[in-house]
């Protein structure tokens, strides 16, 4: 339980740190570069006004998130989220890497969509995601991917008139 509490405190600190860096980068680099301002008459609001105010608020609250743990010594008592439960030992390692594998699958699927179109993207992404979810029966992977791709293509292109790439 103590381990979980520490993890949650770490999560708070990490959130604070990430958003603090994000806010500083936004204010110092991104907003000046990505929101061009020419002439703003007096009394008028610049296009940078709201992004700067919102980023300022993010900066303040992320700093607060970093400072709050300093106000006390003991860890906060927060319930552990369900997703934090220890997975079964036999597939624990795979479960840990599966989200990262899926992120890679999603990126590759996007590239396949750009280069080869929907059908290649769909067949690959379905088979790869099924694999990531633990399906190891290759004929099933292939058959289900082909059938669902065909059905989705028919539904989208023929029924909804979506011109899939």
């Amino acid at each position, binding site marked *: 339980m103590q381990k979980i509490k520490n993890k949650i405190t770490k999560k708070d600190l990490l959130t604070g740190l990430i958003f603090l860096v994000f806010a500083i980068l936004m204010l110092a680099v991104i907003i000046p570069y990505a929101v061009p301002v020419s002439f703003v008459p007096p009394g008028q609001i610049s296009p940078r006004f709201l992004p700067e105010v919102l980023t300022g608020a993010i900066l303040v609250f992320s700093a607060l998130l970093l400072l709050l743990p300093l*106000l006390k010594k003991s860890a906060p008592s927060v319930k552990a989220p369900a997703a934090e439960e220890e997975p079964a030992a036999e597939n624990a390692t795979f479960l840990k890497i599966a989200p990262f594998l899926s992120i890679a699958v999603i990126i590759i*699927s996007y590239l396949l969509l750009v280069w080869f179109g929907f059908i290649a993207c769909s067949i690959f992404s379905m088979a790869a995601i099924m694999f990531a979810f633990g399906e190891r029966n290759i004929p099933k992977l292939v058959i289900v991917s082909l059938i669902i791709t065909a059905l989705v293509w028919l539904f989208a292109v023929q029924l909804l008139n979506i011109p899939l790439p």
Partner: protein
Amino acid sequence: MFTDLIAGFSLLLNWTVLAANIIGIVIGTIVGAIPGLGPVIAIAVLIPVTFVLPTVPAMMLLLGVYQAGIYGGSISAVLFNIPGVPAAAATVFDGFPMAQRGLGGRALKIALYSSTFGNIFSCLVLLLVAAPLAAIALKFGPAEIATLLLLALTVISGVSGGSMIKGLIAGFFGLLCSTVGLDPIWGTFRFTMEIPELENGLALVPVLIGLFAISELLIQVGVPDPALKMKSTNPDAEKQKNAKANHVSLRDMWKMRGSMLYSAIIGLSFGILPGIGSTTPAFMSYAFAKQRSKHPEKFGTGIDEGVAAPECANNAVTGGALIPMLSLGIPGDAVTAVILGALMLQGITPGPFVFRDNGVEVYAFLIGLILSSVPTLIAGRIFLRYAVKILALKRCYIFSTVLVMCIVGSYSVNNSIADVAIMCVFGFIGYGLRLLNVPLPPLLIGFVVGKGFEEALRQSLLVSQGSLMIFVQRPISAVFVAASALVLLWTMRSALKKKKA
């Protein structure tokens, strides 16, 4: 009002409306029952389908998913001890013990009937309250609208789960995301990085699909399959055949009228408040029913009231949550934010003007919501027979299909591959934020109301020549500012207290 009401009703007299609603109810029941999926993902994926439908059938499809999705969550809660949606968590306490005693069918019927009651009750109140509330809101100027949106966002960020500060950060980040694209007054591009697809801003559908569906996929792939657990706790099929014990009569339901009415009121009240969602009122109504029961010790052992109370409350939230969404344009949770987005894509802008500009269509939805209880009851009864088989579907098939549907859904909004990229980026952002326990609803709601907030804020500042005093000089707006400050202070104090405890 009555002319619009009758005209709205006549719009419902069309087979496409009924067909769309039934499809929505069936999909909603299934996705609600499958742990990990839920109405938000289903509605997000179905939005492209609404492009080919007229407004009323399109919205009845989505509202059918919304209504049935909450009820669907009770099916896996009763049969497998796993709530399909968080709102059904309290149903587990008595629903699952009933299923273990061979009364799963009875528990599911009680859940269905009490859900229907909660739904009809809240939708009737919605029908009566939404238009007068919108009429009051019509008197609001840009300063009032800006401060009201700020208040709503503050409340949502504070109560939507997890740390309040994280909720606020998420809300501000959502607002920041809404500033991408053309500046509404000066016409300059913001954060477009010379990418033409970003000039009109980030599209809602890829953002919400990414935030909720893709992040859910990434979360689910890293946890063991609950279907494995389901098999071990599946109630004995032979016991289920005990037809007499599983029969629920009108008299049985009448005995629980008090609990159901209180639960419906609790659900409705919490539904109106932004950000609380369906889970808290379900637990509260369960506790309340237990407190006023003559046999509180029986709660948790598998009694009818223990299922009826939370199910009635979590479904009553539906109508309640739609009240501020329709009348004020403020979505109280992620589902209503998605529905608000879908309405806007259909050319209907929820808010004070909605009853003036689209009164007929809105009344059609409201009457449709009440009438759709009938197909929900029928579909719910039919679904009970096949629930076990559907719920035994492997996650690998469900989520791989969801991914492909997400790609199609994101692409179809503007027929643009860039939207698929946006979906992927927001999927990864959503996953990262969920790992850090940052709540996503404030982010989505901030994004959805962002444009309206900026418009109102800048109009106010144009009127006041840039002076922020306009927000405290106008009485209603000053009340909203004060309320926002109070909410902020109260939640900050709670956060500090919690840390010191």
